[in-house]
């Protein structure tokens, strides 16, 4: 270390230069959840997630055993009654979310990552690369989502992998459009120009300079896509294209029990409410994040 540095400077050097100071994880989280919409959204989402994760452990009846007559009304043994096959509705609701949620999460993650990468590439390079990527994605967008999904599932079968890939492929073009627009805005800013001026390779400019600045819209889009995934996968299950039918599944439950709605509505109402609560919760959370992550201050006179 050179000797010409003042004592104050030397003291400051022990602290990391590159790290974030005064932005502790807990304090940040507290500030985030101080927003009413974040708090409500977080609570709704957490409720459903807890039910889904802890549910199978709590349920005292097996979700696949026939324990009564079809469409029995709620009783002490079966708090939500029975479904079309005389199985415990509560048990099926408690254990039926795992597949649909994990499938949605994985499909969303895949779709958002692929779409984000495509959008960043298209937006940064512009020109021919942009045209090539975006026109290809436009072709994908031109097909109606559900029809496309039905077509592929009926041809390729309805395994976990195929549904995940399919839903991801449906989301990617939409995500790519949003991220491309955000990238176009960021790439025009001076700090990106500066990075190009000092000769930073394109890959590093995209990943280090631009990507962190489109994380806001990307996360919001991810939240929105997650709720779409749930709806789409539930829809596929509802149409009978779910994985191995006897296993409990919220989407499948709607399908099976629609005809029993006048006798016992709970096999339909319970899964629908949970999907609705989760959708509202996730959307509130991501909206709150969009507001919260927008850098405040700045701007000159």
């Amino acid at each position, binding site marked *: 270390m050179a000797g010409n540095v003042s004592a104050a400077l030397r003291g400051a050097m022990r602290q990391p230069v*590159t790290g974030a100071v005064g932005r502790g994880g807990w304090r940040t989280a507290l500030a985030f959840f101080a927003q009413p919409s974040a708090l409500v959204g977080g609570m709704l989402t957490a409720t459903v997630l807890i039910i889904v994760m802890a549910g199978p452990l709590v349920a005292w009846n097996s979700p696949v055993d026939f324990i009564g007559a079809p469409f029995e009304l709620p009783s002490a043994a079966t708090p939500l009654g029975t479904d079309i096959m005389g199985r415990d509705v509560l048990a099926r609701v408690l254990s039926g979310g795992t597949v649909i949620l994990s499938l949605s999460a994985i499909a969303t993650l895949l779709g958002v990552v692929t779409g984000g990468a495509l959008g960043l590439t298209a937006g940064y390079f512009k020109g021919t690369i942009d045209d090539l990527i975006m026109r290809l994605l436009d072709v994908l967008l031109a097909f109606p989502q559900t029809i496309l999904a039905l077509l592929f599932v009926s041809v390729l079968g309805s395994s976990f992998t195929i549904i995940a890939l399919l839903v991801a492929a449906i989301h990617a073009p939409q995500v790519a459009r949003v991220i491309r627009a955000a990238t176009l805005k960021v790439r025009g800013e001076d700090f990106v120009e500066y990075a190009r001026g000092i000769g930073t390779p394109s890959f590093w400019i995209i990943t280090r300079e631009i990507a962190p600045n489109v994380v806001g819209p990307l996360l919001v889009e991810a939240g929105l896509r997650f709720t779409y995934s749930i709806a789409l996968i539930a829809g596929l299950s509802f149409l009978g294209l779910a994985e191995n039918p006897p296993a409990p599944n919220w989407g499948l439950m709607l399908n099976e029990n629609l005809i029993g709605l006048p006798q016992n509505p709970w096999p339909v109402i319970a899964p629908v409410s949970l999907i609705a609560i989760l959708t509202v919760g996730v959307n509130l959370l991501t909206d709150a994040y969009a507001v919260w992550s927008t850098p*405040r201050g*700045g701007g000159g006179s």
Partner: protein
Amino acid sequence: MSLSAVRVDGLRIVTANLSHRLLDDISFNIASGEVLGVVGESGSGKTTLGLALLHHCRHGLAFGAGVIRVDGKNLCAESTAGLRRARGRLVCYVPQDPASALNPALRVGTQLAECFESRVRGGNADLLELLAAVKLPPHPEFLDNFPHQLSGGQLQRIAIGMAFANRPRLIVMDEPTTGLDVTTQAHVLDTVRRLCRVHGVAALYVTHDMGVVAAIAQRVAVVYAGRIVEIGPTARVLEDPAHPYTRALVRAVPDLSTGNPVSGIPGQAPEFGADERCCAFAARCALARRACGESVPAMVAVAPAHEVRCLRCEDRETVPAQAPAPVAWSERPPPLLVAQGVRAFYGRHEVLHGVSFSIGAGECVALVGESGSGKTTLARCLAGLHGEVAGAIEFGGEPLPLAAGARSAAARRRIQYIFQNPYQSFNPRRSIGASLATTLAQFERSERVEERRRVLAALDRVALPASIAGRYPRDLSGGQRQRAAIARALITDPDLLICDEITSALDVSVQAVITELLGELQRERGLAMLFVTHNLALVRGITQRLCVMQAGRLVEEGPTEDVMQRPQAAETRRLLRDSPRFAAARSTPAVC
């Protein structure tokens, strides 16, 4: 002085939770036909004051006390409906940016017609008369234009015309010429002055530019931390300021006539308006003594119509020796960078038509011109940031590839670029220290300890505390960010610094600090600089050579003093003529 058209008494604006007074104890009056200039730096409350005269305040603020009388009518006592009637008729407002104030989807004729209050007036004849009054072509076809088809100066004239349409008693103008070229600005100022005089309209002209105030206002009020600290006839206030802040502000403003080097104001202006316990300027004041920290000074008259809020208004501080004059050489140093026939394009449109010039080693060259003259494009070409370019550039005796990507790492390291907008030049998701370290890592691999030392040394070089390294860009003021940007350029140990209007987004006192810093760097490190600016006055104190650009061509080049004293090109003479000067205050006719 004639009967006051506007009287403001004890106006106070508070935040909604009553914790801060953004404006306090504001009292003044404006006579019919008089222009009162309000100067202050960002955060001083001058815009809040302008809006308050329409009895409007931004969200989160409220009126605390005071009376605003326009033409005898107390706006503070008006109902919402009464205020709505008063605004646009009794009191009008001209915003800073006319481009966003006009509706882009409506023709200007439609928008002008909307301003007339009755069906009696507002016919085509009235519109044409209005166009003529603001010196726009009075043809019916002109009314068919959409806002995007007009220039900034024309739009601002439209906005001014809209304000004058109903012959109001008071017009509030919030920096209406800030975005305009000096020549356009001179014309707009002329129009405003004439309209106010002819129609007997009182005007409040909010600005940060002392030169503009000198050109337009008969009287000036200096606002600091939410209070008027000095008010008086413009010539007196600018030539013999009685408040230490006004004196510091005047010293910070470069004046074209004298060419004295500017000096900044140490310290930071208070952020949250008026202090209720002491003189807000005491912390930065050379004359401050104990009494200054114990109460808010009252306004005292130092001359007829000249009042000042200072306990020591009779005293003058000793001004520290002026910063050394710019380096002067008997002959030019050997060239560091030579540009030969540089041409640049935007698509098929050629914006630079073969520009040739050179920068000597250790020399500070100014590049001035109007907006659109191609000065920023030229600077970007030299930095390799502009893609569509032809010509030859030599750097340090060797040919330099035109694109930054094709240049050697050494060449990229030696030429550093600083951007105009300090709010965009740092990645908002990365701390300042990390941004500096990333730049360093681009050119050399160094140990973390060494990297830290270099980052902190660079920050130290631009007088930023080490704690800035861990802060994010949004936590910094504009001046701090621009200093951090200079630190980022210095960390690579460059030979040439290209500064693209780096002070145009900053307050004058901060601008003075930055130019002082650049002058120091040049003297101490022999750093060559290309200083791009539209402010001729600023150039005089710090540069050795001056290049004037017009419409993509270099029209004049020479030693700064020579060009200033004996301008050859018509463009240079025009820029010199239209630049606002302090001396203009003496010739501004007083209203009687």
